[in-house]
């Protein structure tokens, strides 16, 4: 079964069972998103992909496409809302973009740019979070984690290791690592895991590869995220 619906007036075909997001990705229409990666179960937590479908606000990644649905995606109202959501993410963590290795290849930064966000204006929470450098090949900077749970899903559903978990509640929710010490170096994580290549921001980074591609020539330096898509899919290609 299949059908079609519209996104901002453009007709989009879909197969039964496809979400609005899946159908949009297939049609190369960009719906801003952070916690979605088509390789994993939809999550619906970042809420950046919220669109209106027949006037109701829904998350595009967890809402099935239906025949004749009228979806609004890049309206002024929705983009304004997205800027505010992005601000909340910037406020929550510690994102010092100019000093981040991921700068230019970070989805958070790129989506923020796409949505026309210049600088976060709220007072930051400046949470005290650590950096875990215990693993020989991979470093985790918890300051940059946006709790998208892609690493959690990848490690659990793809790698079969469940190295990553979420603990705490509310604003105290945080990423944890399954090992006796709670550190990555003591866990079953390996740099060849899928979980090493799904982080949309600079929270999980390979060691010894810093600044390999000079700033100015990175993924989103050249083209907008709405054209080139997720950083994870590019990493898959690079790594073969």
């Amino acid at each position, binding site marked *: 079964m299949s059908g079609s619906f519209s996104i901002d007036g453009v007709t989009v075909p879909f197969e039964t069972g496809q979400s609005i997001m899946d159908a949009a990705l297939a049609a190369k229409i960009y719906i801003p998103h952070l916690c979605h990666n088509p390789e994993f179960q*939809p999550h*619906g*937590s*970042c*809420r*950046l992909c*919220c669109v209106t479908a027949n006037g109701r*606000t829904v*998350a595009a990644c*967890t809402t099935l496409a239906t025949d004749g649905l009228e979806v609004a995606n890049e309206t*002024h*109202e929705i983009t*304004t*809302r997205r*800027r*505010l*959501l992005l*601000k*909340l*993410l910037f*406020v*929550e963590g510690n994102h010092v973009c100019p000093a981040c290795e991921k700068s230019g290849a970070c989805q958070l930064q790129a989506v923020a740019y796409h949505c026309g966000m*210049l600088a976060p*204006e*709220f*007072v930051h*929470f400046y949470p005290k979070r650590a950096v875990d450098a215990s693993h020989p090949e991979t470093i985790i900077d918890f300051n940059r984690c*946006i*709790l998208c749970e892609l690493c959690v899903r990848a490690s659990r559903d793809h790698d079969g290791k*469940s190295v*990553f*978990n*979420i*603990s*705490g*509640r*509310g*604003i*105290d*929710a945080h990423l*944890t*690592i*399954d*090992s*006796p010490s*709670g550190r990555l170096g003591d866990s079953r994580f390996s740099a060849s895991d899928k979980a090493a290549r799904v982080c949309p921001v600079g929270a999980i980074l390979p060691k010894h590869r810093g600044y390999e591609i000079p700033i100015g020539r990175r993924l989103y330096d050249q083209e907008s995220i709405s054209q080139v898509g997720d950083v994870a899919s590019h990493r898959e290609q690079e790594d073969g």
Partner: protein
Amino acid sequence: MHTVQENDPSNLLQRLIGLQQAFRHIPSDAIDHLAESLGLSRAFILGVIQFYSFLHSSPRGEYDILFSDNITDQMQGSRLLAQRLASKLGVDIGRTRDDQRVTLDYTSCTGMGDQGPAALVNGHPITRLTMERVDQLAALIEQAVPLDNWPAELFQVSAGVERRDIVLNSDYKPGTAILRCLEEGAEELLRRLEQAGLRGCGGAGFSTAKKWRFCASTESAERYVVCNADEGEPGTFKDRYLLQAHADRLFEGMTLCAAVIGARRGFLYLRGEYRYLLGPLQQILQQRRENGLLGQAILGRDGFDFDIDIHLGAGAYICGEESALIESLEGKRGIPRNRPPFPVTRGYLGMPTVVNNVETLANAALIAQQGVEWFRSVGTAQSPGSKLLSISGDCERPGIYEFPFGTPISEILAACQAHHTQAVQIGGAAGRLIPPAEFNRTLAFEDLATGGSFMVFNQSRELLNAIDNFTRFFRHESCGFCTPCRVGTAMLTKQLGKVMVGHATSKDLDELGTLGSLMRQTSHCGLGQTAANPILDGLEKFPDIFQSRLRSTSFEPAFDLDASLEEARAITGRSDPGAHLEGGGV
């Protein structure tokens, strides 16, 4: 019959609650043991422990005292009482004394609004706290008197009723409804519930018959019925009353539901704050088994096998949301699922599941016994029957009230003898703040829907304190899954704090409005969607309480608050939102 094995991972939460009770925390080696026997990772288990407020990785004191911190407790002086106990015992609130004797802390509303200020001591409720009682507690603790030997009157929870109507005036005989259902058939029962127009009493008001039908019509080998006794909404305690005084009705309702949907197993999800009811409830279940109303071949009907387990919560308001409740029943963190699929198609262990509120199930049993006309004899066309209210706050007669749907707020206020009322919060922290101009509005799904919380504030109260209390409640109870609620609730408390201390400007109010509407529109579940209600209602209906605290109102003589908030709330049509949102720091 399917029973859960001791080592089934879905037992994790119940096992952790047992460990917490036995050892005052979850010891590290117990976590290793659980990880091995349940086949779960250590980090997963730690994640569950850190999700629930009543589970701890480091030991609590021998006496673990939690003061109920709802606004109604505070209005009765709870904070002073807590401070007195703290100074008597020489321990800070939020800490455990060095000798491990005692821990003091605050907790979300414990459901004793009609007999507060209240606290929990090792999970047992203590009501009607006074300075004398606090001194008595301090002495008992210093003398290390075992809890079992504490004076019984400290733990008395009264189940008085201030007003009865059709439901509470009816007698009820255990088994009548089941017998009738067996005689007349499930379809006839459904038809009766449909005609009676019974709607969910947990707040959303979904048709109960429809819910049961959906579940029954989903193909599956197993189906489940769950009674939602999480009652976490601040200011509500009517389910506590029903569990205490009419548990037979709700178990009968669950059994009827089981007959209709073909469930063999049901759960009562009991909030941790009501653990004191566990023993009595289990006795009633046992009695029902002995009377052939539960177990194998109920009332002699071959193949009608159904039994009920009680699962405890552990201090998480979000677990009242039906899909989070199911996650919690499965032993996990209470994170709401994506819906659809709804529990009626994919619920507990992925099987079709009915989740109903305590009052809904009790009413279902009564309707089966008393008939359609009896139920429809009161109420409105769209909201037939009556509603139990938990009334607390500024009134002379707080307590349980049964009112027909359609009753005006003014009549309710007169009945509970509230005077000089400034506002009523209906439906709990997630509900609505109602000013006197709207006291002619009525209690009904088509007007003011409520799960049953009804908190009264008289003119001597600073309403902003109530709004602040509710906003903090949501910050504490947000599950943390989605961005707008996780960060938004933290941001709201911060921004509101700025208003409270007189540092805010009108731009900060704009920001509150904008953030609130973002949360309302984009949050993943009902908690985040309603968490800004107190602030948004306050801004709309009581603008003066905000405006009078602003830093520089005098410099903006032409400032029209209402107009600017309208704009903020809509988000739409804002030419440059950045310009409105700046100036976070003072």
